[in-house]
């Protein structure tokens, strides 16, 4: 793959970061569990459309985002309900509610499709944000591969946290046995587990951008990183605070 070479970049980007991004790009182009490859690439395109969507900008200023009429800047054939979800996750995520997710499910955006869409949206966004942080243009999106979604749904699910069913701590078995690093989990890992590949996708990128789940257990500087854990957590904390994230 010729993407993510960063050959013109003046900064020393680690090889594991390039590898993780390339691997994600390949998976993005393939059929997922609930969306085709073409739809997955369109979801990625809508993430980018959200960056400059005037309706999103205006809606973010509105007292309530749920009673604000308008149209998103959209260039894909995705259903309007999916486009709205993608744009909202990027530009106004703190006002997402259980009622909105439930209502979307009743209107045709199933919770499974929502979770896969969320996984693509946030992972693509984090890769684009890495480039933006370094003053680099976003990478061209991959060519979609043909095929049908697998419709895979984990066997063990529970409705005890968040707005969607998730795999419980003791439910990662069979095809999902690899999901919890060292057999331990947390709500942020469980969050997208309704679509296990969505979790697998962001975790691989996270291992390179931040730390592996195993690495997170140590509060000391990791050998292959240039910043220590306190520096990392200061950056993480400031980003989270600006985003008004309680979690």
């Amino acid at each position, binding site marked *: 793959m010729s993407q993510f070479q960063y050959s013109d970049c003046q900064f020393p980007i680690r090889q594991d970061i390039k590898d993780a991004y390339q691997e994600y790009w390949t998976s993005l182009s393939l059929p997922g569990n609930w969306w085709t490859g073409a739809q997955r690439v369109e979801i990625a395109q809508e993430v980018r459309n959200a960056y400059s969507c005037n309706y999103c900008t205006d809606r973010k200023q509105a007292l309530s985002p749920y009673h604000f009429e308008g149209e998103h800047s959209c260039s894909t054939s995705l259903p309007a309900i999916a486009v709205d979800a993608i744009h909202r996750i990027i530009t106004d995520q703190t006002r997402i509610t259980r009622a909105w997710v439930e209502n979307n499910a009743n209107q045709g955006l199933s919770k499974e499709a929502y979770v896969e869409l969320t996984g693509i949206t946030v992972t693509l966004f984090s890769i684009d944000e890495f480039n933006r*942080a370094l003053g680099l243009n976003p990478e061209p999106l991959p060519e979609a591969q043909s095929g049908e979604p697998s419709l895979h749904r984990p066997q063990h699910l529970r409705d005890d946290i968040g707005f969607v069913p998730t795999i419980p701590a003791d439910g990662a078995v069979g095809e999902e046995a690899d999901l919890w690093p060292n057999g331990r989990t947390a709500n942020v890992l469980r969050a997208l587990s309704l679509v296990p590949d969505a979790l697998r996708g962001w975790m691989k990128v996270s291992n390179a951008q931040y730390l592996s789940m195993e690495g997170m257990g140590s*509060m000391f500087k990791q050998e292959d990183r240039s*910043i220590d854990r306190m520096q990392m957590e200061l950056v993480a904390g400031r980003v989270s605070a600006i985003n008004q994230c*309680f979690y």
Partner: protein
Amino acid sequence: MLRASALTNQTEIDIQGVNGDASAAATGIEHGEELMKFAEALASGEAVSLSESREALLAKAGGNVLVDAAGVAANFQRMVRIADSIGIPVDNMETDLGQQVREELNLSRFATSKNTLSKS
């Protein structure tokens, strides 16, 4: 995690750096002020301040630090959206350290606190 890493490393820090206090960010953390401002600029979406803070961090700390900081900042641009899109609650609200940090940073002011506090 910032407080926990500081305790492990036996370093005195000031967690108000998380809320944007530049001198607090510099307390006990190498290049803390530049790292904090770089993270803030990325998350705020302000192109000019991002460019300025990138140059400042690069000049002070070098390219390797800049790249790793970009990775961590980009990672948390994703993580906050996973948490809020799915509405997950904080795993354990009972630890003393967690309670102390949430109080000191006044995190309950955030709207997404309802995803945790409405279940407590």
